[in-house]
């Protein structure tokens, strides 16, 4: 029996797609507070304004993140959502769960919360939606002591690092994404659980340029697997693709349901290569690897014929973010190749992380993502801060600005200047 009339929300149940309204009504059969979610949302639709109050001091002892406070501004009308805090639970690397663990997590949330979940939030955490303040400490105790799991990051913290499933299942992965993700999660516990920065900071680790965790679109610090040497080519397999052999479906068979005609390597591979670095010589495939940007497209199309090179590592890009203030932006390539070495606890990557943090913590404005700070100071300044020599890979297009500003140390012999003397002639 519905507790509130929800004619506007009911419209959302009429389409062919799954409806969260139907899900919440079903959930309300055992968790009556879910009626109040629907009731409050219906009111928001009518009033055209949110009725959630955002933030506050809720949390668990010693942590400055992991819980996001939510309160209703109409609690008398909807007492079930008077408190409706969000709990972020750190996801395991690669999002692998045992069924036993999932059941235990769901039982925990049935016991202490609304039972409503979101797997997974955009940072990658499991999101548990809706609990009261007095349930937070008991939930945290059970989560950490009984399940051995932890809260994720929120606020101006390092957010829960995320990775693709990497070498555990994917032959294209150029490094062990789960290993570095787990290592840095342990290494930066303080930064994850307590505020450290001008604003949020996200790591994401993708094993290759297919970027299955969308590191380039969504993380301040994107580590994307790549290789230094040549793409490995199996010329016999190339011929098999060209002949349309049954065991060699294009794109690994991903599109074989449609009638696409015979495989056309010119149209489907060469013409789509961003640097046009591939061609056929007779029946042999040639690649000018010096021009290749390691985009993975050709490897995706002919996975049995082409493989990443043998000298593997990662590119580091920085500064992606979602469109809250300035609009969305992808991360910018900063380091084209870096070794990912678990033998020295990923020292090279940690050095880069801490260099950018030290700079951003000092120069970044409050609520400014590192990508916005980079944009504000400009890439040349940022590269100089990072002590990185500019490379062709940093350049998006030829310059259109005719002015070149040299630093004194960049000009042989330098120069002498007397600013006071200059200002006598040119007032500031």
């Amino acid at each position, binding site marked *: 029996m519905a507790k509130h009339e929800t004619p506007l929300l009911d419209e959302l149940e009429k389409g062919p797609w799954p409806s969260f309204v139907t899900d919440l009504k079903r959930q309300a059969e055992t968790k009556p507070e879910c009626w109040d979610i629907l009731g409050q949302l219906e009111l928001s639709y009518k009033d055209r304004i949110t009725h959630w*109050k*955002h*933030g*506050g*001091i*809720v*949390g668990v*002892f*010693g942590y*400055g*993140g992991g*819980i*996001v*406070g939510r*309160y209703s501004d109409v609690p008398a009308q909807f007492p079930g959502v008077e*408190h409706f805090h*969000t709990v972020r639970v750190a996801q395991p690397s690669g999002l692998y769960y045992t069924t036993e663990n999932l059941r235990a997590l769901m039982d925990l949330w049935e016991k202490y919360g609304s039972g409503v979940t979101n797997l997974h939030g955009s940072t990658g955490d499991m999101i548990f939606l809706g609990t009261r*303040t007095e349930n937070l400490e008991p939930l945290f105790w059970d989560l950490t002591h009984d399940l051995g799991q932890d809260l994720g990051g*929120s*606020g*101006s*913290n390092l957010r829960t690092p995320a990775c693709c499933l990497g070498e555990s299942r994917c032959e294209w992965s150029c490094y062990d994404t789960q290993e570095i993700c787990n290592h840095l999660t342990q290494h930066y516990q*303080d930064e994850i659980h*307590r*505020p*450290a*920065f*001008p*604003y*949020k900071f996200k790591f994401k680790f993708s094993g290759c340029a297919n970027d299955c965790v969308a590191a380039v679109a969504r993380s301040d610090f994107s580590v994307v697997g790549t290789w230094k040497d040549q793409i490995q080519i199996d010329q016999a397999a190339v011929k098999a693709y060209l002949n349309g052999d049954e065991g060699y479906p294009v794109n690994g068979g991903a599109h074989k349901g449609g009638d696409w005609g015979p495989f056309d390597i010119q149209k489907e591979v060469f013409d789509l290569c961003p640097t046009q670095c591939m061609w056929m010589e007779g029946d042999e495939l040639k690649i000018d690897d010096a021009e290749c940007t390691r985009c993975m497209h050709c490897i995706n199309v002919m996975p049995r014929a082409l493989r990443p090179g043998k000298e593997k590592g990662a590119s580091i890009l920085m500064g992606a973010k979602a469109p*809250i203030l300035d609009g969305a932006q992808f991360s910018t390539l900063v380091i084209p190749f870096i070794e990912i070495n678990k033998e020295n606890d990923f020292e090279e990557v940690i050095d880069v992380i801490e260099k950018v*943090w*030290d700079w951003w*913590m*000092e120069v*970044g*404005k*409050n*609520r400014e993502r590192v990508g916005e700070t980079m944009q504000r100071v400009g890439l040349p300044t940022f590269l100089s801060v990072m002590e990185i020599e500019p490379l062709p890979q940093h350049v998006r297009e030829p310059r259109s600005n005719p002015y070149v500003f040299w630093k004194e140390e960049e000009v042989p012999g330098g120069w002498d200047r007397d600013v006071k003397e200059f200002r006598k002639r040119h007032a500031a």
Partner: protein
Amino acid sequence: MALSLEELEAAIIEKATKSPKPQLYVKDFYKCDPDAKPRQIKNVANDLVKKGELMFWSSGSTTMYARPDRIKDEEGAEGIN
């Protein structure tokens, strides 16, 4: 750091007590000791949270610091973290 740890803690507490707004960003504490590195200031501020001198205040997307006696939570109780 130009200040001793005790002096820095006292400066941070004073800043949090006297600032016009009760919630402060970690960056607002940097001026308490301009010679200290931002990570040192952050660590001292987080230690003050453990000691109960400061508390975290979260908007969800940003976490700020405040003196517990200057903040009331949404439930009307004084802020004790």
